[in-house]
């Protein structure tokens, strides 16, 4: 079997805090094929952004391996890593913070090209501006003269400048106004399609995730608790936490809101300093049994390409009968 574009194996990371180490990522295994669009979803504090930082080597793992294009990038020196940097690029949530206020749009997009000594920079910048739907004249503007949507287009152009193989987008449309959100989502989708780009999309808006992602990984307290392809996830999410996330998405119309069974997950995400024993979700799970409080749940293979970490699931059984996301009677 050919090596996937990105492969994570047993990745762990904790950060020091006054209360003790925060276990941000607690053993993640994940693969991403070339051209695939994978979404990482979960509440804030679940470790999804930490994982992105580890993949980009903006932070170093405590344990585990990260293979990118067939090479383990964990042990590499900064110098050895340099040829790989252009292949892995990121689009940030806050386009204001991501751009230097003293650099023009042209300079912002040219900077990565200059650092990596690419030829024909002016022509490349012009091509990138056109690709993200910005007029050439905007090149001379400064970030404060741009709207939020335009800034995010610049952020995308900059990320695409070095022709990456993998784009990591961390909540790229959350800070944008509703009327320009669709523009940027379409742009991101088109960039992936036209360039054969792989996308790791980090997002909390499940409607956007549903639109963009081929596969969905649900993260809870530093672990992936369910991984499913789009065709199975939206109709057959198996993990109670995944079901709770789906149930929490607001209705799209008042009629739908009136028809839906109200289900509200009680409590907050537990502390990552002292994650609950057994299943990390048991403190909030409406289906929790005694064994969930003590024994870590196994990975249950529900189909060839679909698994979840839960005691209550049966291998190969497909969508489980946990109810439609509501609490157990």
């Amino acid at each position: 079997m050919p090596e996937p574009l990105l492969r994570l194996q047993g990745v762990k990371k904790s950060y020091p805090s006054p209360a003790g180490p925060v276990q941000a990522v607690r053993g993640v295994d994940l693969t991403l094929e070339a051209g695939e669009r994978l979404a990482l979803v979960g509440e804030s504090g679940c470790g999804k952004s930490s994982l992105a930082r580890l993949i980009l080597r903006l932070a170093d793992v405590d344990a585990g391996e990260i293979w990118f294009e067939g090479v383990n990038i964990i042990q590499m020196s900064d110098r050895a890593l340099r040829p790989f940097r252009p292949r892995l690029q990121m689009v940030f949530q806050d386009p204001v913070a991501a751009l230097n206020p003293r650099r023009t749009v042209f300079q912002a997009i040219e900077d990565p090209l200059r650092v990596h000594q690419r030829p024909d920079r002016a022509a490349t910048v012009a091509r990138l501006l056109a690709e993200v739907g910005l007029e050439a004249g905007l090149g001379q503007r400064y970030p404060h003269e741009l709207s939020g949507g335009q800034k995010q287009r610049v952020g995308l152009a900059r990320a695409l400048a070095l022709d990456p193989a993998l784009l990591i987008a961390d909540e790229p449309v959350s800070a944008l106004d509703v009327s320009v959100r669709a523009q940027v989502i379409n742009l991101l989708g088109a960039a992936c399609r036209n360039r054969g780009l792989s996308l790791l999309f980090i997002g909390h808006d499940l409607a956007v995730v549903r639109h963009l992602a081929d596969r969905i990984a649900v993260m809870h307290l530093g672990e992936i608790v369910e991984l499913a392809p789009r065709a199975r996830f939206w109709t057959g999410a198996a993990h109670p936490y995944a079901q709770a996330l789906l149930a929490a998405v607001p209705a799209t119309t008042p009629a739908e809101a009136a028809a839906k069974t109200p289900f509200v997950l009680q409590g907050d995400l537990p502390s990552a300093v002292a994650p609950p024993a057994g299943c990390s979700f048991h403190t909030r799970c409406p289906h929790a049994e005694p064994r969930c409080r003590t024994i870590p749940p196994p990975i249950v293979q529900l189909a060839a390409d679909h698994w979840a970490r839960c005691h209550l699931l049966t291998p190969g059984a497909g969508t489980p009968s946990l109810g439609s996301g509501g609490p157990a009677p």
Partner: protein
Amino acid sequence: MSLLQIDQLSVRFGATMALDSLSLAIAAGETLALVGESGSGKSTAALAIAGLLSHQATVTGTIRFDGQALTDWRGVRQGGIAMVFQDAMSALNPVHRIGAQVVEALRLPRAEQRVAAARFLDQVGLPQPERLVDAYPHELSGGMRQRVGIAIAVAQNPRLLIADEPTTALDVTIQAQILALLRDLKARLGLSLLLVTHDLGVVAETADRVAVLYAGCLMELAPAAALFTSPHHPYTQGLLEARPPFGTQAPMLAELVEIPGQLPRLDPPPAGCRFAARCDRADQRCRAEQPVLRPIADTLVACHHA
């Protein structure tokens, strides 16, 4: 009679026209959603009602609450109107205990403060309220802090609760909790709720009526069910269509429907209809003459072509 009646309310900040001749009413026990994007004037309207506008604001028009005209745009509204803010962390004082902040505005004798604070914390569904009165804001999660923000508002025994993007900073799971709490409080205390939001999902879950603002102007005012099933204004239609579809039966689209262009500058605002530059139905008249609100069925719409 309406609990709150706004007539021709305009707010300027220097050359910027933040809110242009807003007129609307909120009935007792009603939830009205004020929907818009950044610069739509929705927060400006909320701040004017709450008496929290800055000194730079120039205000014309009237707001009547319970028949009484509100004249001070920069004074705490005594009795009747309370507000919940988007960012509960910056709404709370980090160096004061939760309990003291909840009852601060009530001027209770010291001996009664703890019990009263615990009672309000209990009302908003916070666990172990007797212990929480001694906690500091940083010890609480985002969802709990927002509940404290709501407790502070409820402590003032309001008849109108203004909630400005109360769930925007929260995760969906916590958002669902806070929306359920607001619905519950409204029913239990008979409140009117003015919900300021950009999120049409939040509107669908909570609102009785919806006011859609764009670039300082009221574009459409409709019962929530009507707005979602038969929107009349091209901007409202665009907002609804631009949402990625969601639900097990929802279609998978190759591309989302876009609203082209971007929000206009408001210093000064464009002539004619504020939405004309982004509207595919716009003509000469739209660019010259600002449309006035007119009724279509039970909806008010400001569009020459609706």
